[in-house]
């Protein structure tokens, strides 16, 4: 079987920020889940990591020998008893319904449709599952077939990652694995395509206002 690559990718600066480690946790969750479905962006992240390796190699080292000898001795004394931290928990759920990749699957902890849903417009819902960091809030956005998300204005970045189904907006068509990265201060609408509910990971940096 020949796999289908995503067509719509995160902005280049997101991949750079993910590689350097400066991207916040919630946006990193979206980017990493896209990476599971996108070998193209995985290659970009590896290239950015190689750049970081060059910057890292370029960092100087103050050769304060006594201090570094003491630190080395302290580290050496721990080598025989050191153990790795436990690996990040992975989901052990039976994978029913649409297959959501890690790392999102483990964070959801439940099959995709098994959440409480708050209707924000006819046949458009937000999940009661949410994630949050200092800058960004995320939840699931579910759109019934053909159901439009009413026009809204955002004062801050909005990002969507399609998990099942498909939708389109004024910028293009989005299928599973595609990312819509919508800049601040734009008006925006989205419509699910026919053929089933569309569920996206939906991130927002600030307030959302429906017009």
């Amino acid at each position: 079987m020949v796999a289908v690559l995503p067509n719509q990718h995160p902005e280049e600066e997101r991949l750079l920020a993910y590689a350097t480690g400066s991207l916040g946790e919630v946006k990193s969750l979206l980017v990493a889940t896209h990476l599971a479905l996108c070998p193209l962006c995985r290659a970009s992240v590896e290239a950015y990591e190689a750049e970081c390796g060059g910057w890292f190699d370029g960092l100087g080292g103050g050769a304060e020998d006594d201090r570094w000898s003491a630190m080395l001795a302290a580290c050496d004394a721990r080598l025989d008893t050191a153990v790795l931290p436990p690996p990040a928990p992975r989901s052990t759920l039976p994978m029913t319904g649409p297959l959501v990749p890690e790392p999102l699957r483990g964070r959801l902890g439940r099959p995709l449709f098994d959440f409480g849903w708050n209707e924000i417009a006819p046949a458009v819902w937000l999940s009661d599952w949410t994630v949050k960091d200092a800058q960004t809030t995320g939840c699931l956005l579910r759109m019934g077939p053909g159901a439009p998300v009413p026009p809204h204005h955002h004062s801050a970045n909005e990002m969507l990652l399609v998990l099942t189904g498909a939708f389109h907006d004024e910028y293009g068509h989005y299928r599973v694995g595609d990312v819509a990265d919508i800049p601040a201060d734009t008006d925006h609408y989205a419509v699910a395509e026919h053929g089933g509910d569309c569920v996206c990971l939906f991130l927002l940096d600030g307030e959302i206002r429906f017009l």
Partner: protein
Amino acid sequence: MTSVADRTNEELVSAIAVDRDRTAFAALFRQYGPKIESYALRNGAGRAAAEELVQDVMLTVWLRADSFNPALASVGTWIFTIARNRRIDRIRKETRPEIDPNDPALLPVADLPPDRVLELSEDRRILSVAMNSLSPEQSEVLRLSYFEGKTQTEIAEERNIPLGTVKTRMRLALGHLKRTLQPRMV
């Protein structure tokens, strides 16, 4: 046996993985300990937290040496990724979301049509060419902002240049990367 001074970093990591060679470990520690500390300090960690990160990262190097693959990354890049992840974990108190290479939902490169696989290595090459063709000033704002986690205001103050100049350099640098990569997106 060759002396430590004659061995490449790749050979030092391999000696740790295969022989549990403490002399090789000490050589890597002397070389990379100060880089890890400097990386943590530049990202705003205090002196004590930075020293703890050095210990934590170097212990991980000791325990994970067998997972280092020189075909995938240089030793510097490999240790950077450990330092980055441990810093997020310990200092930012967040968990870094990462792919699981064994995830059945992951799209492996092996499933791609052969022409797309070629494109991947081409992509990596194009990207490093793009990074290397940035002006030194543009490359510096990317490094300070993304690698050292500084705000644009901090960069302007630190370098004693107007904030507008920082913003312009950043915009030009990101625009350059984006333009270089655009052909692959169609």
